[in-house]
């Protein structure tokens, strides 16, 4: 029971810490606005940092060397991530591609074109997005209605064998800036819904792909809707085989929850630092017993998220499967409650979102307006609790009316 690195891990940590210190991009010249995600200046810094990491072998540490990785362990990758976070370097542009989508492509696709996508992504030259959710397929991620039909079969002398995609996707993070995407489609509506889906990768500049940013309640527009109209792509861009779509979804989503659940952003230090500055009935907010009670509850939850990552790491280093679960739903809810609490103790002044006036450049207010999305993206609270109940506690799945029914016969709205 200890938090210490073994000698090998300690040596690795020292090495990467020094490397990060010597190579970290200088962000001191960026304005608060330029430090926000998806601002071109922010993205440029992220890209520069990713390329530096790739040159030094730190971009995809646990990948095999053949794929541009360092052939390192999951522990080394985690140590590097921890050191990056320690240095305040947290960029999210490349994780969708590198941690969720490309591993699936690397596993299933052997052709040169598919393989050639990897090095550019590793260097941060390309950004990927996932095209999974649909207007009528959110939590029910197998309810995909976006259709892919095959244009004949060149083997039997008719058509090109290309696939033609039609449909709409939504909540696609970063799609507006993305170079590539992975799309889940319905390829056989006569099969039960989990069986008739297939995945493809595609160039976001392919004719017929139209991306429209969605303005969220926080004012941000990093989420998008994507319309696919007669989008024609070669059969070689199918990820896995026809009908493997659900398998691909499951692998990528479990990776997403690991990424989303790792708990980044504002923490108890930011809260305490502010609470000390804000006057209260007597003294500062920090001295208020009700606030201190709340702070204790918040701390044990947020500390647990940090500590659970150490348990995951321990399991990995012992060659055991990490049990996980719970961290994502906990983090999302904690963040929402924390921002609301901070606004509350600022009292009337808590209303101000203007970064030029509000404490911490309005970070708490901005996070407050983002928080509902944290409880929805990457598996809603309700889905996460179903997963905990069914996969960890072993409770039965819901009774389903869509089981074993051909997809085209499943009732749906609108």
């Amino acid at each position, binding site marked *: *029971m*200890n*938090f*210490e*690195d*073994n000698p090998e*891990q300690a040596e690795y940590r020292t090495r990467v810490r020094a490397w990060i210190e010597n190579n970290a991009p200088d962000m001191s010249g960026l304005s608060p606005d330029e430090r926000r995600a998806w601002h071109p200046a922010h993205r440029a810094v992220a890209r520069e940092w990713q390329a530096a990491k790739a040159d030094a072998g730190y971009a995809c540490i646990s990948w095999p060397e053949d794929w541009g990785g360092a052939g390192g362990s999951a*522990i080394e990758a985690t140590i590097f991530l921890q050191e990056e976070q320690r240095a305040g370097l947290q960029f999210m542009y490349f994780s969708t591609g590198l941690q969720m989508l490309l591993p699936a492509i690397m596993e299933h696709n052997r052709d040169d074109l598919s393989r050639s996508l990897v090095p550019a992504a590793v260097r941060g030259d390309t950004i990927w997005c996932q095209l999974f959710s649909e207007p009528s397929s959110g939590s029910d991620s197998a309810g995909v209605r976006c259709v892919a039909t095959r244009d004949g079969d060149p083997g039997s002398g008719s058509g090109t064998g290309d696939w033609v995609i039609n449909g709409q996707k939504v909540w696609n993070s970063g799609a507006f800036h993305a170079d590539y995407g992975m799309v889940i489609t319905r390829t056989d509506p006569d099969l039960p819904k989990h069986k008739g889906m297939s995945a493809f990768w595609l160039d976001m500049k392919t004719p017929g792909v139209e991306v429209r940013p969605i303005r969220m309640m926080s004012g941000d527009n990093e989420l998008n809707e994507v319309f696919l109209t007669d989008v024609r792509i070669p059969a070689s861009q199918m990820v896995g085989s026809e009908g493997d779509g659900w398998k691909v979804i499951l692998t990528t989503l479990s990776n997403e929850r690991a990424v989303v659940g790792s708990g980044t952003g504002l923490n*108890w*230090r930011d809260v*305490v*630092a502010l609470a*000390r500055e804000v006057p209260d009935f007597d003294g500062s907010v*920090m001295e208020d*017993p009700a*606030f*201190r*009670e709340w*702070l*204790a*509850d918040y*701390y*044990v*939850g947020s*500390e*647990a998220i940090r*500590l*659970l990552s*150490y*348990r995951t*790491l*321990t*399991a990995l*280093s*012992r060659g055991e499967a990490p049990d996980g*679960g*719970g*961290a994502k*739903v*906990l983090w999302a809810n904690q963040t929402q409650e924390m921002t609301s609490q901070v606004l509350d103790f600022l009292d009337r002044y808590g209303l101000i979102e203007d970064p030029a006036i509000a404490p911490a450049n309005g970070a708490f207010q901005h996070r407050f307006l983002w928080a509902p999305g944290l409880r929805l993206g990457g598996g809603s609270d*309700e889905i*996460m*609790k*179903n997963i*905990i*109940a*069914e996969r*960890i*506690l*072993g*409770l*039965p*799945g*819901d*009774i389903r009316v869509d089981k074993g029914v051909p997809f085209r016969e499943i009732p749906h709205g609108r």
Partner: protein
Amino acid sequence: MDFDYSDDQRALKDEARRFLADVSPLSVARGVLDDPAGGLDQALWSRIGEQGWCGAAIPEAYGGFEFGYVELCALAEELGRAVAPVPFASSVYLFAEALLLAGSEEQKSSLLPEIATGSLIGTVALSEGPGVLASERVATSFAGGKLTGTKLPVIDGMAAGRAVVLAQGGDGVQLVLADLSGEGVTREPVSTVDPTRGAAQITFSGAPAEPLGEGGDGLAQLSRIQDRAAILIAFEQLGGADRCLEMARDYALERYAFGRQIGSYQAIKHKLADVFVRNEVARANAYCGAWALSSDDAELPLAAAAARVSACTAYWQASKENIQTHGGIGFTWEADCHFFYRRARHLGLVIGSQREWKRQLAGCLDAKLAGEEAERLRA
């Protein structure tokens, strides 16, 4: 990085679980509940003593077996799971730790060997009335080697042979060591919400006693003792909370309503998923506490408060939702659910309520941040 039990510790824990399943089924706790006169199961206490568990963290020099603190945490988790009706917490987490932290060489040498085998039971006598423990609410006095006053409740006060008592001495409150079987001590049982752990009202009328170690600030010493006990008790709470979740899960699989297992309804699934998350929070913080305890880390007070706050929350939630999941049957005397509901409350108060610990936790965070800021300024 090794943030889990080691293989040896897991083996010890598995062995303890098998042992307790054999010697401490819930029928043993029920025996004490139905006939709470002694406030413990003497036969079970003897069996636990034979295992050497009471001396798990006591150094060999004082007759202990020195397995280690993480090992003691593992045993605590299993004892909590079994809701064992024994004075283990009072004797081992509180009394033995008080002696180890503050006792004189002579006190340690004479008492710890008997504590280690279980032949002597120790406890702490602190509270005198409602409300948070504070020096102005300690009326019991210690002067000229004599102790006078009434302590209520004293957990395991009927079974214990010795107690560490909080009393007003010459220079404020201090900890003193009293022989409960000696002259000037009268005690009578007090019924509590958890009769499987006995309690007493103890009146000292000029009872002979001696300062614990060198004396000193009693509340500061008590705080250090309780920090260590809080971590060990957190493991008992965690074991109990886990068992509640398993009981609720098993019942939800077995019970049918409206033609289906109640565990297939999201109302039940989501409730139990919430319990699972709270238990995970408690587990993570308890493990951190175990690390702090075994390495005697400077952040022990913070780790202890976090372990305690999260364990109190988890056990309370798990024990009440276990009854809720069982429905009416869970509310009966005959069902086992109430053992955990009672024990959750008992453990949640026995070393001070969550309110006290939350206060400590916030203070630790304030100090930690100030320390980090000072260090940054120096650098």
